[in-house]
C-alpha cells in the first residue's frame, strides 16, 4: 500500500528552518545576532518590495525612500515629540503610504524601464530633501501660520515649529522600543531585538502569504504577466498597481520604525540609492514573487558577506558579477515561484466548482 506521508518534505524543511532561526541566538554572540537582525530587517523590506516588483512586476528601485520616510517619522516623533517608539509605527506606515500614493499616481502608467528611472529620481529627491532639512522648512512655514493664529506658545505648536531632520547629521537618541514597560534595546541586547524582528517578520510572511493567495494577489500577478489581457478581463490595472505600490510603501515605512528603534541613530547615509539597489537585488536574485525565495535572497545578499568579512572590499564587485551571470543563466532567480498545482486526486468530487 502506498501511504502518503503525514507531512510533505517541504513542510519538514520549512519547520526545521524556522526552528533553527528561532533557537539560533542561543548559539550566537551579540554581534552575530545583530547580523541576523539586519538580515531580518532586509527580509521584511524585500518582502514589501516583492509586492511591487515580484507580484506587480513594476521595476521599482526607490524603495529606500519609503523606508527613510518611515524611519524619519519615527525618529522625529520619538526624539522631538517624546512618543513611544512602537506607537509611531502605524503613523510611519501611513505617512510612507501617503507619500507613495501621491508620488506613484502620475507615474504608475510608465513602462518598465522608465518607471525604474523615475523611482531612482524619487529616492534621490527624498534623500536630498532630508539632507536639506525639508521638514525644518515646513516647520518654519507652519510656525508662521501659528504666529498668525496667535497659538505659537502652545506646547504642541512649539514642538512642531522645531521639528527637523537634522540635515546631514541625522537624528540621535531614538528611544528603544518597549512592550508593556519591557525595554527592547537593539544595541545592548540584540537577542531581545531579534525576537521583535522575528515576530514582525512572521506577521509579514503570514500577511503576504495571504495576499499572494487572495483574489487580489492573483489579479496582481495576472496583470504582471500580461497587462493587456488583464485589462481586457476587467482588472483595473492602474488601481491594482497603485494599491500594490501603497501596500509595499506602508510596510517599508513600518519597517523603518524597527530600523530607527534598533540603531537609535539615523542619518541620510542609511538611505542611499545603494540601499534601494540592495533591496532590488535581494528580490531579483532570490526569486521575485516567491516568499521563501526572497528570504533566501536576504540571507545571501546581506548575511553571506558578513561571513566573508575579509572580502568586504570585493563584496559589491562580486555582487555585480553574480547579477550579470544570474541574468544570463537563470533570470528568474535562485528560487523562482512554482506554478500553482491543482492535484485532481486530492480534490473531493463535491469540491469541484469549475
Amino acid at each position, binding site marked *: 500500500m502506498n501511504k502518503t506521508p503525514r507531512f510533505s518534505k517541504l513542510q519538514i524543511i520549512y519547520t526545521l528552518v524556522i526552528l533553527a532561526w528561532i533557537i539560533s541566538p542561543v548559539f550566537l554572540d551579540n554581534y552575530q545576532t545583530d547580523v541576523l537582525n539586519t538580515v531580518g530587517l532586509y527580509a521584511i523590506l524585500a518582502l514589501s518590495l516583492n509586492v511591487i516588483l515580484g507580484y506587480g512586476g513594476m*521595476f521599482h528601485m526607490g524603495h529606500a525612500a519609503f523606508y527613510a520616510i518611515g524611519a524619519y517619522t519615527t525618529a522625529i516623533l520619538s526624539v522631538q515629540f517624546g512618543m513611544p517608539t512602537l506607537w509611531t509605527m502605524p503613523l510611519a506606515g501611513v505617512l510612507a503610504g501617503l507619500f507613495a500614493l501621491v508620488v506613484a499616481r*502620475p*507615474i504608475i502608467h*510608465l*513602462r*518598465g*524601464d*522608465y518607471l*525604474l*528611472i*523615475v523611482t*531612482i*529620481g*524619487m529616492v*534621490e*529627491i527624498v534623500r*536630498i*530633501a532630508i*539632507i*536639506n532639512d525639508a521638514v525644518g522648512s515646513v516647520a518654519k512655514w507652519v510656525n508662521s501660520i501659528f504666529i498668525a493664529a496667535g497659538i505659537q506658545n502652545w506646547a504642541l505648536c512649539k514642538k512642531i515649529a522645531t521639528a527637523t531632520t537634522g540635515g546631514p547629521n541625522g537624528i540621535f537618541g531614538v528611544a528603544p522600543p518597549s512592550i508593556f514597560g519591557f525595554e527592547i534595546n537593539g544595541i545592548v541586547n540584540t537577542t531581545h531585538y531579534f525576537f521583535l524582528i522575528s515576530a514582525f517578520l512572521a506577521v509579514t510572511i503570514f500577511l503576504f502569504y495571504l495576499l499572494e493567495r487572495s483574489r487580489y494577489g492573483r489579479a496582481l500577478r495576472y496583470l504582471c504577466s500580461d497587462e493587456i489581457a488583464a485589462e481586457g478581463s476587467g482588472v483595473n490595472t492602474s488601481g491594482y498597481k497603485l494599491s500594490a505600490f501603497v501596500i509595499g510603501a506602508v510596510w517599508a515605512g513600518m519597517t523603518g520604525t524597527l530600523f530607527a528603534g534598533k540603531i537609535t541613530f539615523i542619518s541620510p547615509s542609511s538611505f542611499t*540609492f545603494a540601499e534601494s*539597489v540592495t533591496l*532590488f537585488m535581494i528580490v*531579483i536574485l532570490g526569486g521575485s514573487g516567491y516568499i521563501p525565495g526572497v528570504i533566501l535572497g536576504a540571507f545571501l545578499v546581506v548575511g553571506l558577506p558578513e561571513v566573508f568579512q575579509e572580502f568586504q*572590499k*570585493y563584496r*559589491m*564587485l562580486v*555582487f*555585480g*558579477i*553574480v*547579477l*550579470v551571470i544570474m*541574468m*544570463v543563466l537563470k*533570470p528568474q532567480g535562485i528560487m523562482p515561484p512554482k506554478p500553482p498545482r491543482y492535484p485532481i486526486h486530492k480534490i473531493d468530487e463535491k469540491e469541484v466548482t469549475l
Partner: protein
Amino acid sequence: MEQFFQQLTNGLAIGGIYALIALGYTLVYGVLKLINFAHGDLFTIGAFLGLSLLTAFSLTDKLGFALGVGLLLLMIVCLVGIVGILLDQAAYKPLRTSPRLSAVVSALGMSIVFSNAIMLVFGPNPQVYPHGILPSQVLTIFGLPFPVKRLLLLSASVVLMVALYAFIQKTTIGAAIRAAAIDQDAARLMGINVNLVIMLIFFIGPALGGAAGVMVGLYYGQIKWTMGWLYGLKAFTAAIMGGIGNIPGAMVGGLLLGVIESLGAAYISMAWKDAITFAVLILILIVRPTGLLGERVAEKI
C-alpha cells in the same frame, strides 16, 4: 546680468558634457531599446584612464597643450570604446532575446562591477587632475566675460557632436545604423550586418562618454569613482528630455539641462541642484514622455 551670463556659459559648458554622455544612451537605446545603466561608469573609466595616461606619459608637458590633449582624447576614445564593446559582448549579447528586465538588471550589475573595479584599482578617495592644463584666460566679448576654458569645453563637445551627426546622416554606415534603429529584422533582410552595427554603437557611445570623462577631469580637476552614476543619471535625463533614441534630441536636451541646472542652482537653491534635475526628469516623463524632439511612438509608454 553678468551673473546670469556667467551661469549661462557655465550651463552650456556642462551641458555639452551631458550631451556627449546622453548620446551614448540614445544611440544604444535607439538600436537595442535598452537603457545602458553602465554608461555612466564608462564615463568614469574614461576620466580615470585619462588621468593615468596623462600623468604616465606627461603628455601635455612633452607635446604642448593642443597636441597633448588631442592625443589623450584619441587614446581614451579608442580604449573606452573597446571597453564598451567588451561590455556588450559579456553582459548584453547573451540577453538579446530575453525579457527587458533581465537586460536592465544585467546593465545594473555591470554598472556596479565597473564602479567597484575603479574603486579597487584607483582607491576610494577623489583623484586630482594636474592643475593648469586648460588655459585660465578670460576673453571679453561685448563687455561680457568668456572664460577660455568654457569655450574650449563647449566647442570640443560641439565638434564631437557635429562629427557624429554628420557620420550618422551622411555616410553609408550611418544609414545602416539608422536602419537598424528603425527595424532590425528588415535591416537584416536588406543585407545589413546588425551585429556589426550594434558593436559599432557600443564603440561610439562609450567612446564619446569616455571623452566626456576626460573633459570633466580637465575642467573640474577632481574625479571620483562614484561620479559616473550622477553624471549618467543626468545625461539620461537629458536624453529623455530630447526624446530618447533621437540624436539631435540628446544634444539639445544636454545643453538645455546644463543651462536649467546652473540657472536653478544660482537662482533657486544650490543645495537642491540635483533635486531640480530629477524633478525635471519626472515632470517630462509625466507630461511628455516622448521628449521635446521625440516623435510619437505607437507603443504606449
